[in-house]
C-alpha cells in the first residue's frame, strides 16, 4: 500500500482539524453550560425542554393569579374586620339610643353618631383593590356594590354570585354582599336591609317628637339586625380564612412542582460538568498527540539522507 506524500500531509492536517473541532465543541459546552445547544444535539430532549419551558411559564402565570387572589382575600379579611368594628360601635350607640334617661336633644346627638357610623360602614363595604375589583363585588361590577337607589335607599346592585379566578385551581375572590347587609336573613320573616334600618332609626332619633319608648323599640329591632349581620360576617370571615389557607397550600404545591420542573429541565439540557471537563481534557490530549505525531512524521524524508 503506497501512501502519497500530499495525501499523508492532508490526512494528518484533517485529523488535527477534527481534533480541534471536537475540542472547540467541548469548550462551547463548558462555557454555555448546555449540553443541548440546538435541537439536533438531542431532538427528543429539545422537544421535552420546550414542553417543560411552557409548563414553567404557565405555572408562573398561575402564581400571578394566586398572588392576586391572596391580595383580594386579605383585603376582604381586613374589610370584614373593619365592618364588624363599625357595627359594634353602632351597636353601642343604638344601646344608648334606647335609654329612657335621654332627652330629645341627647337623642339627636346619638343620631349624629349613628349617621357617622352609617357613612363609615358604607365606605368600608364598598372597598376594593382600586382597579375595578370590589370585596363585596358579587359576580363583578364596575360601580360600587352598595349604592342608593331612586328612593335613596342603599341597595346591593352588583350581580349575585362570586368572581372565581385560576386555571389549575379555582379560587373565589369576591363576596356576595347582599346576605350580610341588604338582605339579611331572619327566622320566620322577610329579609332585612341594615342600611334602611339604620336610616329609619336615625330619622326617628332626629325627630324631636319621638319618645324614648318609641326610640327604644326601634333601636332594639335594629340591634337584632346588627347582631345578625355581625354573625353573618363572622361566618364569612371564616370562609375567607379557609380560602386563604387553600391558596397557601396551592402555592406550596406549585413551588415544589416548579422545583421538579426546573430539575427535570436541567437534567435534560444542562451539561454534566464532570464529564464535560473530562471530555475536554481527553480532546485536548488527543489534539496535542496528533500535532506531535505529525511533527515527527513530517520530518522523515529520504531527501535528507541524499
Amino acid at each position, binding site marked *: 500500500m503506497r501512501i502519497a506524500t500530499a*495525501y499523508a500531509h492532508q490526512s494528518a492536517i484533517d485529523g488535527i482539524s477534527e481534533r480541534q473541532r471536537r475540542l472547540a465543541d467541548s469548550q462551547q459546552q463548558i462555557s454555555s453550560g448546555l449540553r443541548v445547544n440546538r435541537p*439536533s444535539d438531542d431532538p427528543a430532549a429539545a422537544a421535552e425542554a*420546550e414542553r417543560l*419551558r411552557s409548563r414553567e411559564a404557565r405555572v408562573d402565570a398561575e402564581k400571578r393569579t394566586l398572588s392576586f387572589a391572596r391580595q383580594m382575600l386579605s383585603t376582604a379579611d381586613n374589610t370584614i374586620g373593619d365592618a364588624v368594628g363599625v357595627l359594634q360601635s353602632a351597636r353601642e350607640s343604638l344601646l344608648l339610643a334606647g335609654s329612657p334617661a335621654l332627652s330629645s336633644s341627647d337623642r339627636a346627638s346619638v343620631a349624629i353618631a349613628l349617621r357617622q357610623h352609617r357613612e363609615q360602614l358604607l365606605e368600608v363595604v364598598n372597598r376594593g383593590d382600586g*382597579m375595578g375589583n370590589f370585596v363585596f363585588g358579587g359576580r363583578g361590577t364596575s360601580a360600587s356594590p352598595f349604592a342608593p337607589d331612586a328612593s335613596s335607599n342603599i341597595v346591593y346592585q352588583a350581580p349575585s354570585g362570586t368572581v372565581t379566578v385560576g386555571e389549575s385551581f379555582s379560587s373565589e375572590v369576591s363576596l356576595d354582599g347582599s346576605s350580610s347587609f341588604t338582605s339579611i336573613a331572619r327566622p320566620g320573616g322577610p329579609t332585612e336591609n341594615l342600611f334602611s334600618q339604620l336610616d329609619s332609626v336615625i330619622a326617628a332619633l332626629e325627630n324631636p317628637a319621638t319618645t324614648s319608648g318609641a326610640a327604644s323599640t326601634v333601636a332594639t329591632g335594629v340591634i337584632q339586625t346588627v347582631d345578625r349581620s355581625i354573625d353573618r360576617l363572622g361566618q364569612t370571615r371564616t370562609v375567607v380564612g379557609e380560602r386563604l389557607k387553600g391558596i397557601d397550600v396551592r402555592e406550596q404545591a406549585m413551588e415544589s412542582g416548579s422545583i421538579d420542573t426546573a430539575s427535570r429541565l436541567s437534567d435534560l439540557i444542562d451539561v454534566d460538568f464532570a464529564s464535560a471537563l473530562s471530555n475536554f481534557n481527553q480532546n485536548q490530549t488527543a489534539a496535542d498527540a496528533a500535532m506531535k505525531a505529525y511533527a515527527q512524521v513530517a520530518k522523515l524524508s529520504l531527501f535528507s539522507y541524499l
Partner: protein
Amino acid sequence: MSDLLRIGASGLNAAYAQLQNAGQNIANAATPGYVRREVQLSENRNVGAGMVSGSGVDVTGVRRVYDQFLSREAVSTQSSASQDTARSDALQRLDSVFADPATGLGAAFDDMMQSLADLSSRPADSSVRTAVLARVDGFADRAVSLDARLTDLRASTQGRMAGDVDHANDLLASIARINRQIGQTAGSVSAPNALLDQRDTLLADLNKIVRANANFAVDGTVSVTTQSGEPLVTGEQASTLSLVPDRLDATAFDLSIARGNGTAVRVEMAAVGGSLAGMARFADDDIAASRARLGQIVAGVAQAFNDQQAGGLDATGAPGSPFFTVGTPTASAAAGNGGSAQLSVSIANGSAIKASDYALAWDGSNYQLTRLADGNVSSFAALPQSVDGLTISLGSGTPAQGDRFLLRTASTLIPGLAAATSDPAKIATASASTTADWASDNRNAKALLALGDALSVDGASVISRYASLIGEVGTRSQSAQAASDMSMRLADDAARSRSELSDVNLDEEAAHLLQFQQAYAASAKVIAAANEMFRTLLGALG
C-alpha cells in the same frame, strides 16, 4: 562500435527521460489533480548485422498511473458526499432558527396566555386589556418573523443553486474545450497527460454539483451524461443547464438541459444528484414541512381564539371581534393545464387543518387530491368539497383532463397573519348571558385562558405541536448530519484508494532519482567503453 554507441546512447536517453519524469513528479507532488507518471520503456529488439542481442531501449511513452475504476469510485462517492453535505449544512441553519426556546413561537404563545391570566383577574383594568392586545400582536409578529426566516433560508439556498448551475455550465464548457484539445493531439506518441489530468479534475468538480456519468473514448475524450442519460457534453458540444420553475409549484425549480440543437429536456432535481439535489431537497421538502407545521399551529390558534371572542361579549355588550386575521389559502393551476378552471380554497375549520399543501388532479371524471406531506390520496367526483378543514370550490371555467392544481394552505396562512383588534374595549371578557357591566365579568376571559391547553390544533395542544416541530427539525438535522458523515467517510476512503495509486510519494521519487542517476552513469560508461575500444582499434591499426 556504432552499435554499442547506439545502445549506450539509447540507455542514456532512457535514463535521462526517467530523471526528467521523476523531476516532474517531484515538482508536481502537491499539484491538485496531478496523476504521477511513469516512463514506459521497451527493449529495441532490432538485431541488425553483427549484433548479438538487441539495439538498446526505446522510450515508448509516458504513462499516467491511473485506474479508471478507482477514479470513478472516488468521483461518485464525492458526488454523494456533496449532496448529503449540502443538505446537512443547510439544515444546520434551519436548526439554529429553533435553537433558543425563549425566542420561539411557544414562548410568545405562553406570554399571550400570561396576559390572559391577568385579564381573568382584572378584566376591567384597561392597562391589562392593552397588554393582552400587545401580546396577541406579539404572537402574530413572532410567527411572521419565524416564517420569514424560513423563506429567507429557502431563497438563499435557491440563490446558491443558481450559482452552482452557473459554475456547472462553466465546467461543461471547459470539458468540451478539453475534448477539442485532446482530439487535436490525437496521433501523437505520448498521451496528453496534462490535459487528461485537467479533464479528470473538471469531471470531479462537475460531479460535486450534478451527478454525471463519464464515458471515455480511446483517445481520451469524454462524453458526459446525467444519471438518466441526458447528454451534458458530447464531443466538443456542451449542453447548457438552467433552473426553470416546476410546472406544478412555480416556487420550486427543475433543471433544464438545453442541447446545442435547440431542444431542452426538463429533469427533476431529486434525480440530478450532487449539491443541487441536496439543496433542492432542503428548499422544497425540509423548509416546506417546517412552514406547514407553523401554519397549522397558527390556523388552530386563530380559529379557537376568534371563536371564543365571538362567543362572549365585549365591554360594550357586543359580541367580541376576532383577535387574528390569517392569510388566505391559494389554488394555482399548473403551467401547461389545458382547461380554463380556476379553483379557490378557503378555511372551513382552522382547528382541523393538516400541516401540508395539496395537489389536485382532474382525470376527466374524478378529482384526485394528494396531501403532499404524507402522500395520502382521496378522490371525489365534483366540487365543492370539504376536506381536512378546507373547502375547495370551482371558481370559474372548466378543467380539462390531466389538469393539475396546487393548493397552498398551511404555507399561506402566516404571511397574512396579523392582530385584528387594537381597541381594548373589544376584548370579550363577559359571558354571553351577562346583561350589564360586561367589563367586570371575567367568565369569557377565563374561557380564553382555558384555550391555552384546551385549544386543539388537529387534535393536539399548541405547545405539543410546537415541541414536535422542534423535535422534527432536530431529527432531520441530526440524521442529515449522520448521512453526511457516513458519505464523507466513504468518499475519504475512495479518495485514499485513488491516491494510493495515483499520487506522488516524494521518498519513492527520491529513491528513483538515485536509481536513474546510476542508470545514467552506467549507460555513460557503456559509451565511454565503446569510445575506448574504438581508440584501441584505431591505435592498433596504426
